[in-house]
């Protein structure tokens, strides 16, 4: 169980890392929104799932299971809130007519 939890958390951390690298490397506002807004969702979900599993490694008492369910519910709320926030910020940028960056090499 602990091993599985560690694998989950490490994969989650990997996706967080790529999200951060993307945030630094991408050229403009919109593409950075992609990295910042979404790499997190899967990263957070995997990390929280790992924590929920780890929480059970002492045994399956009612308290522990309830706690795990609550941890997973945090993930559910992130899944609802994160895209909504990303959408709101992107819409705000579009309304202020921020120009999207285009790839000069491929869009000929």
């Amino acid at each position, binding site marked *: 169980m602990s091993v599985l939890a560690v694998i989950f958390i490490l994969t989650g951390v*990997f*996706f967080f890392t*790529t*999200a951060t*690298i*993307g945030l630094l*490397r*991408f050229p*403009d506002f*919109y*593409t950075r*929104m*992609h*990295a910042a*807004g*979404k*790499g997190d*969702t*899967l990263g957070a979900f995997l990390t929280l799932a790992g924590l929920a599993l780890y929480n059970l490694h002492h045994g399956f008492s009612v308290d522990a299971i*309830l706690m795990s369910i*609550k941890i997973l*519910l945090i993930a559910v709320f992130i*899944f*609802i809130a*994160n*895209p*909504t926030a*990303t*959408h709101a910020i*992107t*819409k705000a940028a*579009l309304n202020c007519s921020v120009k*999207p*960056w*285009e*790839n000069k090499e*491929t*869009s000929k």
Partner: protein
Amino acid sequence: MRYIIVFFILYLHWILWSGKFDAFHLSLGIISCALVTFMSHDLFIERKKLSPKIIVEAIRFIKYVPWLLYQIILSNIHVAALVLSPRMPIEPKIIRYKTKLKTDIALVTFANSITLTPGTITADIVDGEYVVHALSRKVADDLMTGEMEDKVAQIFEEE
């Protein structure tokens, strides 16, 4: 009326998740639920009519979630590969996607699903057209196949 319904739903959740029944926590719950109700009561989507269909829809929605998770994992790996590749072959562009969905809840679910799958962000809905910012050609093509839209349509708009 609306205030009262929203407040009671929120307060039920508060009691469920806090699991503490002393006066301090209960009154804390009343205060914070009242505040949240006051600030966001108009954000909840109202359904035109309540019918037993909502249970069918809920079951279909739960079946949809694993598929969505699978898509999220696939496209997250795709974006991670884009980020890590030295040349970073991204071709961001704004695409317009004509939708056949009608009801509010289906539109919201589809918009959130698009945004959840990495590589695409819904920016706006104008006259039944989604304005989507796509990160690369592959994710744009994936969206254009309409597979996700069909699944969402199946949940909410089939009899």
